């Protein structure tokens, strides 16, 4: 019997090192962690943080490398290494690093310390990075599932809280549903274009799919794909899981979900739309426009009427997703053109800056949540300005940044997206986005009022005092510092984001 020997693709191990480091660390945590007695205090987190740092360093090295050598595809064209993927990898590693700092104290406070959470953090990061690197819809799906499954378990990881269990289950059911949509979209797209690889899908236009022929199959595929991705970025009307899951999940997990999860999902969305589907941009761009607008409006409006801070921030994260979608819409005008415009880099920059912001914000919420993680109502923040002025000030900076006040990173992010939209003459959506951010500002003001202005009420003093452990404080300081530094001197980061996207453009077919 003469069977062709299966030859595996050549693998550039070094180019995959950011992923491999994280994978190795996850395996060590799972295997060694299971076999050895409990590690000394803080070591799980430190180990994960070191892995994240190492992975980040390798991403910088590789970014430098692709700047010189040009972008390249790896593992038989399954993933692509370019500035874009490096930027997203770095953003995810930063999220992971900060999340570890927050989680360490949290887990000990909740008496839940162990290697599992960190291992899941690492696998989620791998999923996110694969999504950002994917050059093939199947690979993208793998990344999506790795990310999602890690998050399902993470959401339910606080065994003592029934809300955590509920949130995990909700996320799992709805997430599975959306994955099915996504997969069906991939299948239809494959049927319509004959490939799942991004470059081949582009090439199929004109040969397999022709302008004369009906490309309904492809369009249906694009639509379903968008549903799956919109679910992941929690865009309206696929956002229903977000408030419940964000509220129920352990607060550090929520922080990580809102940062790393969003980075991965938006990186994937940008790549798929601009690199695989540029030929259908006139079809998907109006859809993105509509989704962006309703996401902005609904996210901000519903945020305002919440009374639970975690829920508020969940809706605010929906509204931020709408803002990033404005950038995606701007990117849609130039998809497939040599001059990519500012859309892609602005969206990428936004999601990166937002990741740090939201981590810092949720870090404060973690502390205010106190033992049991239950004090996340708006009233729990009452009087924080008196009892913990430094923490309240940090939270104020982060909230102002989320509201887009100048001299913070949030303003830089918003300005970039607005500039991108206006650059493509999408004036209407730019105005809508800014007005929605005014509505959302009301929500941040409410939290600030509670911290600084609201009078104490009877019962407040019975609450446990807010403890500020070192690691979490460090995370908050880092987030606030980053927010202010980028707010005052954003030039380098803007250049980096633009550089990252040009490398992705100039060298790929």
């Amino acid at each position, binding site marked *: 019997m003469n069977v062709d020997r299966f030859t595996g693709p050549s693998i550039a191990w070094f180019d995959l090192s950011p992923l491999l480091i994280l994978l190795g660390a996850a395996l060590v945590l799972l295997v060694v962690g299971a076999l050895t007695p409990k590690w000394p205090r803080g070591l799980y987190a430190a180990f994960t943080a070191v892995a994240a740092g190492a992975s980040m360093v390798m991403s910088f090295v590789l970014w430098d490398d692709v700047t010189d050598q040009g972008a390249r595809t790896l593992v038989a064209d399954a993933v692509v290494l370019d500035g874009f993927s490096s930027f997203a990898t770095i953003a995810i590693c930063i999220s992971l690093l900060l999340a570890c700092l927050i989680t360490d104290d949290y887990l000990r406070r909740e008496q839940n310390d162990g290697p599992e959470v960190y291992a899941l953090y690492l696998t989620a990061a791998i999923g996110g990075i694969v999504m950002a690197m994917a050059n093939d819809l199947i690979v993208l799906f793998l990344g999506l599932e790795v990310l999602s499954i890690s998050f399902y378990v993470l959401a339910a990881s606080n065994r003592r809280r029934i809300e955590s269990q509920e949130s995990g289950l909700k996320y799992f059911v709805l997430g599975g549903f959306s994955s099915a949509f996504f997969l069906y979209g991939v299948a239809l797209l494959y049927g319509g274009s004959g490939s799942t690889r991004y470059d081949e899908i582009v090439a199929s236009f004109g040969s397999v799919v022709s302008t004369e022929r009906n490309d309904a199959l492809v369009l249906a595929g694009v639509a379903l794909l968008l549903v799956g991705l919109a679910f992941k970025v929690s865009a309206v009307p696929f956002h229903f899981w977000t408030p419940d899951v964000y509220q129920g999940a352990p607060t550090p997990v929520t922080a990580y979900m809102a940062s790393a999860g969003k980075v991965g999902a938006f990186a994937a969305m940008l790549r798929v739309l601009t690199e695989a589907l540029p030929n259908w941009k006139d079809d998907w761009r109006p859809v993105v426009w509509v989704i962006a607008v309703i996401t902005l409006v609904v996210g901000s409006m519903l945020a305002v009427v919440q009374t639970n801070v975690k829920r508020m921030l969940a809706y605010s994260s929906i509204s931020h997703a709408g803002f990033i979608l404005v950038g995606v819409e701007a990117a849609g005008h130039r998809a497939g053109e040599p001059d990519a415009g500012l859309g892609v880099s602005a969206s990428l920059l936004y999601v990166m800056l937002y990741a740090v912001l939201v981590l810092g914000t949720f870090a404060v919420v973690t502390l205010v949540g106190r033992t049991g993680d239950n004090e996340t109502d708006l009233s729990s923040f009452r009087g924080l300005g008196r009892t913990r002025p430094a923490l309240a000030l940090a939270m104020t900076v982060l909230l*102002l940044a989320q509201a887009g*006040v*100048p*001299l913070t990173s949030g*303003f830089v992010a918003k*300005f970039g997206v*607005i*500039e991108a939209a*206006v*650059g493509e003459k999408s*004036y209407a959506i*730019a*105005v809508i986005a*800014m*007005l929605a*951010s*005014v509505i959302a*500002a*009301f929500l941040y*003001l409410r939290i600030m*009022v509670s911290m*600084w*202005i*609201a009078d104490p009420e009877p019962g407040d003093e019975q609450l446990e005092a807010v403890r500020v452990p070192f690691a979490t404080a460090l995370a908050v300081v880092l987030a606030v510092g980053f927010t202010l530094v980028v707010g005052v*001197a*954003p*030039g380098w980061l*803007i*250049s980096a984001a*633009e550089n990252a996207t040009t490398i992705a453009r100039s060298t790929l077919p």
Partner: protein
Amino acid sequence: MSFPILTALVAVPAVGALLVTVLSQKRPEWIKLVAILTSVFTGALSVWVLSSFETADAGFQFVSKHSWIEPWGISWHLGVDGISLFLVVLTGVLFPLVIVGVDPHHDHKRYLAWLLLLEAGMMGSFLSLDLFLFFVFFEIVLVPMYFLIGGWGSEGRVYAATKFFLYTMVGSAFMLVGIVSTAILAREQIGRLTFDLVEIAETADFATSTARWLFFAFAVAFAVKVPMFPLHTWLPDAHTQAPTGGSVILAGVMLKLGTYGLLRFGVYLFPEAALWSRELFLTLAVIGIIYGAIAATMQKDLKRLVAYSSVAHLGFIVLGTFAFTSQSMTGATMQMINHGLSTGALFLLVGMIYERRHTRQIADLKGIQKVAPIFAGAFMIVMLSSIGVPGLNGFVGEYLILIGSFLTARWWTVVAAAGVILAALYMLWAYQRVFHGEPDEANRTFPELRAKEAAVLLPFIGLIVFTGVYPKPMLDRIEPSVKALITHVSEKTGYQEPTVPEPIEVEAHEEGQP
């Protein structure tokens, strides 16, 4: 390179705010000292700018320009001309007076930190010559003012502060899109992305309809800030609820951001659009004058009365701006300062009444003149300045506005002139009810003006009288820049300013001759 004095004007209060924040709460006297020193130093710097300002030069002086965010073509570009000069000085003078003269009663540290940050933001707004930079400062001043109203205001403070913040942000939302659009559309003509005000205004020509849209994006933000009818509803709430210091700053300098912005950005960048929409603005301005006056007459709360009088006064400034003559615009620029002085002082005085009586209701006050004649006298002078009585500063500004506007906006001016009479009505009536008559039981112990309070009020009254009697030094510095702006408008649009008959030279007669 010479000393970057304008950068110092922004940086010194900002550093002061930082110092106050890091100083220990246990050292209140140090905190107060740092706050006073930095604000006085800033004030001294602003006076230095005034003294070394080239009177006849219409362009921007003391310019400092550094690249800031290169990928977006944004620079740290500061400069001062005749239009912004006195606003900068007013900011520099007003803040130390407020810091020294008004006691916040609690949380001094945070109060002073916010106040100094506010000063840095205000200075930056008046000095910025870069659209992005201006927006940064324009928006950043919201935060300290929000916390000042929210943290140290009266009962309805949270509502008022939130309303103030959100109203202004809605305006800013439009302006941000306008700024970005302006820069991006100008890029096609300039060849690179820049947010530089002077460069865009001098080189870029926008299509007529485009410029009108852009102008409106800017104008909405400024109209909220002024505030112009019908976007004024945040103002009475904010003023009434704000602590005295906040009210003084809000009325004294912050509202001027709107009128200054209209002149500096609206008219300068989009002259055609500004001319095209002048009837709308004139009408709204006149409505503001009359409406503000009528509403002020109806008020029972003294502070609310002053707040509504602000609406009327700022209507005059907008009228002068959109009448497009050099007199009216000079008058408008001068009136910004006059209003800052007289309304600022009025809020201080109302604050003093509140400190003494814990009420601002006109009905609760009676016969104060009998028990506190000096206090009543001070109130009288400031009030007369606000009405615009000849010999005091308010008269010069209003007179210039009315005489200038009469040439180009006759009927609007006729109606506006009635506003002057209404101002006398509500102010004098309020004065009569509060100060005249026999003091009742509660008002019989009304304390007289204290030395410290007098020391704070004296600079206000001095400036009010000085500019009223001798406005020439001020006008000499404002006029060249205003004329340059009118020339700019004429060059861009072909607008001809109506010629004013030269004043008849009155020959000096020697004593004794007929």
